[in-house]
């Protein structure tokens, strides 16, 4: 069974990912370039997968299964680091890009604590 602090970290990571998605959503609404739009969609999907994974992990009580799930989450989180440069290239508004990156960094921090 995940300890309370781990549940808190999962919940905080999920909230940060959702904030990153909301900023990405704003960027998508302002974007009129089909190529960039497709890339934003791909980044969003990446975040959605991570969020779904987090929600699943929240429900796991078996220690071994929880440990396996968090290992996978940490691997996914590492791939977010490389996404950050990509995000700054596809989001025109620097402030929005910085906001997405900041929320992702927060989420990665919570996931790495698991």
């Amino acid at each position, binding site marked *: *069974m995940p300890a309370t602090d781990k549940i808190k970290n999962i*919940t905080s990571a*999920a909230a940060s990912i959702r904030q990153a998605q909301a900023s990405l959503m704003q960027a*998508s609404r302002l974007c009129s370039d089909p190529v960039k739009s497709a890339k934003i969609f791909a980044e969003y999907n990446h975040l959605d997968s991570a*969020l779904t994974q*987090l929600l699943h992990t*929240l*429900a796991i009580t078996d220690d071994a299964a929880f440990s396996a799930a968090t290992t996978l989450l940490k691997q996914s989180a590492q791939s977010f680091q490389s996404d950050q440069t990509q995000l700054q290239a596809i989001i025109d508004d620097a402030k929005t890009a910085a906001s997405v990156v900041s929320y992702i960094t927060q989420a990665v921090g919570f996931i790495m604590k698991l």
Partner: protein
Amino acid sequence: MRFLANRTVLILTTGFLTSCSGLSQIQTPINQFDQGAHSVATNEMTFLKAVETADCNSQFYASAHDWAVGKGANFDITGTCNPTILTDQQIQIRQQLMDALTLYADKMLALSSSDENKTLDSNSQQLATNLNAFAKQQGFSNLSAATDIEAAVIGIAEMALDQKRFADIQTAAKSMASSLKLIIDTLKTENTNFALGVSSKLDQTEINFRDILMNTHKQRGAMSFFDVVEARQVMQSINPLGSSPLATPPSSQTAYDPSHVADQLNSSLDAIVKANQAIADGSTSGIIAAVNDLVTRAKAAQTDQSTLNK
């Protein structure tokens, strides 16, 4: 002197909750407590089903998108889906948690009656027996805090079946307070997180549509006006928590926000705990106020959901 006065009030209040004449007066708010708990349970299950629907809707549109842009080998118009956030089995487990809450409220109603027989009807007794068995077989093992939840459900099921230990509602409310709170806190944490999942799926579909619309605009020019209108019509009905008008000011859009719906649901769940605490405290006026709050919150959540689903 003041101590004596307080003591007198305490004795009178306790006597009120347990005496025959008191029972008939307390039965009305306990009946409302029972109805409120049932309404909250119904709202909770509607919400959980909506989580699964949002997930499935999103999967359908994602699959159609992938095929349309050449990423998927084929398309599927059957609408079958494998839920990724909450499966049917997981929803069923949460149904058992809601059964535990309503069973508890039913038993409280039975205890508050002036009848000699305070046992539940045979259907409720069977439900309690099944819940007890399910919890003892570790049926809640995929919930966070599973061991504690199982103990809480076993406690409630045994209380529902009990014929001797709980003679009055105040003792029962005190004994079950921690079990009730644990179940409700677990559901609240889940609701908050599931709402994030629903929002993620809804926005995913919007981004998906935007991506396709940009492509169709390149090919169809001005005619893509109708593609935008059609996409909006789909978006209006895609939120399983409620369909939205063609266009609304931002201030009206919070009603369709999954986090707002989850917050409302959570406040009605909290109201069950507070009403139970008021029963445990034994003040009739406190019980009436807390039960009224529960009924109001449950009705508000129910009205919102039924209005949104029209």
